[in-house]
């Protein structure tokens, strides 16, 4: 996170991590499609010929605490990144992960991908360690993507797994847009709650802490009930999670 008082800006960085072909870029594309272009910029994708992410994708979102609405006039700039999932881009993943404020881990629900999911998560942990961070300090949500495919882990299995883990788990089928906003807002909620607790961001923006997500939804042109989006997660109670680790 960066706070630039002169420029009246607060910048957050959210990173979508996960194994190759798990749907990280698809998540970003869907966020891009589902939001109106007043507050979000162009989706920058740096990919190779075969549609695999080469360096990263980046979607900039700019929220303004408008003075007219009682805010301070400061902007909250949110940059959402994806890392390249392929094993060979290890150094790029580490570079993109630098300075991340929150991570959405996009897992592939197919049973055959179990090992890749685990390997990528360990890779995340290792890279965080090398960057002087740890999973314990970082807001993390997990998305089990590709729920629409056959041979995936069942809902019951996921619920059980989620209840045993620390991170909130969202189920998604990103190609059809399902679960994408839920994951994004879940991550934004965790990250915001933690950073607001540490730095008093809401005060800087001249708003109530709880007003950020509704404001984000409004400025991004999303007509959805935020609490319904958040409550679609299983396991890893969002409130408890954020309190324990803020």
């Amino acid at each position, binding site marked *: 996170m960066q706070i630039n008082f002169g420029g009246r*800006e607060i910048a957050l*960085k959210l990173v979508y991590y996960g194994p190759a072909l798990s749907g990280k870029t698809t998540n970003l594309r869907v966020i891009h499609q589902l939001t109106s272009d007043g507050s979000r910029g162009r989706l*920058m994708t740096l990919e190779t010929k075969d549609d695999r992410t080469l*360096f990263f994708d980046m979607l*900039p979102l700019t929220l303004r605490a408008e003075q007219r609405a009682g805010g301070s006039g400061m902007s909250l*700039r949110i940059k959402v*990144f994806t890392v390249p999932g392929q094993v060979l*881009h290890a150094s790029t993943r580490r*570079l993109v992960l630098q*300075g991340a404020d929150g991570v959405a881990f996009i897992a592939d629900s197919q049973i055959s991908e179990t090992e890749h999911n685990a390997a990528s998560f360990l890779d995340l942990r290792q890279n965080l360690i090398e960057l002087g961070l740890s999973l314990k300090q970082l807001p993390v949500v997990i998305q089990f993507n590709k729920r629409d495919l056959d041979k995936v882990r069942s809902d019951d299995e996921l619920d059980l797994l989620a209840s045993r883990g620390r991170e909130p788990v969202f189920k998604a089928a990103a190609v059809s847009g399902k679960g994408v906003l839920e994951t994004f807002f879940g991550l934004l909620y965790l990250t915001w709650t933690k950073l607001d607790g540490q730095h008093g961001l809401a005060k800087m923006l001249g708003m109530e802490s709880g007003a950020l997500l509704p404001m984000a939804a409004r400025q991004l042109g999303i007509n959805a009930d935020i609490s319904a989006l958040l409550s679609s997660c299983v396991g890893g109670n969002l409130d408890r999670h954020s309190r324990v680790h803020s």
Partner: protein
Amino acid sequence: MTFEAPQVAVADLVLDARVRVEDLVEREALEELCRSFQTLFGIPVRIYSTEGARLADAAGEHELCAYVNTTPDGQRACEAIVGAVRARDPGEDGDVTHTCFTGAAYRILALEYDGRRVGRLIVGPFLPASLTEVPATLTAVDPGILKERATALFAKVPRAKAETVTRIAGHLKSALDLIFFAGHKAQVTSKMHLASVRESYRQLEDKTARLQEALDRMRELDRLKSTFLATVSHELRTPLTSIIGYSEMLVQGMAGEMQADQLEFVKTIYDKGAQLLSLITGLLDLGKLESGTMRMIVRPVRMQSVLAEVSSTMAPTARKKGVSVELDVPADLPELRGDAERLRQVFLNLVENALKFTPAGGSVRMSARLVDGDASDPEDDEGLALLAPTRRLLEVRVSDTGIGIPPAERAKVFDPFYQVDSSSTRQYGGTGLGLSIVKRLVSAHGGTVRIEEHVPRGTVFVVSLPQQGPPPQTETHG
């Protein structure tokens, strides 16, 4: 080579650095775009960055402006207006109009990228569509400005409605946004590429350093092992010399006559002592060879004398076993550069080994000849027609009619302590060091040793030594 790339602040990339449009755009291309706009709409267009740098200026001067500039006060007033327009902030809404004393107007619009102001777009001067008369402010600027002339030129200035200018400017702004995005993307890609290469390089260097460290440690351990071997061998040899010396004196009766039993026991002590000594000497040699501390004295060597000496040294042992030793060396065999003492040791070991495994009635034969260097290694046959004559080899063959060595075992017999059949150590004696010493000594001469089948029975050890001697680096070992 050290890796020197321009410093890339990756933090800037992946965090939220301010984008400078100066770094994103190709100015000439931008200028071309502005010129095409002017051609299309007749209105000049200029682009400035936030920091005030002019990125593009396609402003061809209107005739009216040129005329005004011919008068001193007109020129001053014009410069003031241009300066004011250039410095004008587009305000909160990002869109202001600045009017000139000629009645013409400039529109100053904020350029935004990524939610931030990055520059200004200045459209104009153009005449608002509503203005039909030359304003009084124009002629008032300088008495030299003639009303008729000014009116004629005034009519040539392009006219536009405010909405039209808004539309044109909006169109230009979205074109610029695309250009900025493309430039930004290219910039991010190249920076990221460099940063990734740098990061990979750093990782690789790290790994190389760790490997090098491991290698250094291993080399040091190897050296310690060789030193240890040499020291231990030396320390063992000293008391052993006494054991052998005193038991020999006892056998020779220098301390008085001994009974038959006593004599036999002492002889056994002497024999085993001697055996132990040769084992230790072998170890010491091997240690020296491995640690590279063996000094070779390279001189011209007559192979005839070396082999004759070996033959005569081994003659008593051969006689005792009932095996004949034959020598076949042409008298005109040229000299070879090498260490005579080490070469003698090579063939002593080979003949001793041959005798050991050859039953009574058999024969051991040493023959030598000069051959052209051949490609004993089939991979190494490039340019052989040119190189072979410079690689003359002296080939010495030591053949026996002994038990032979199975093909699978042939490479292993040169390993220290290896014997084809471990029971043979007891049956035939020996330390198992002889052949490994042979191999190392021959290598030290730049030569090779290999084993061939001896038909109908037995083994041939073929030693090939380069006639011109060991390669220089071996020669300087010391």
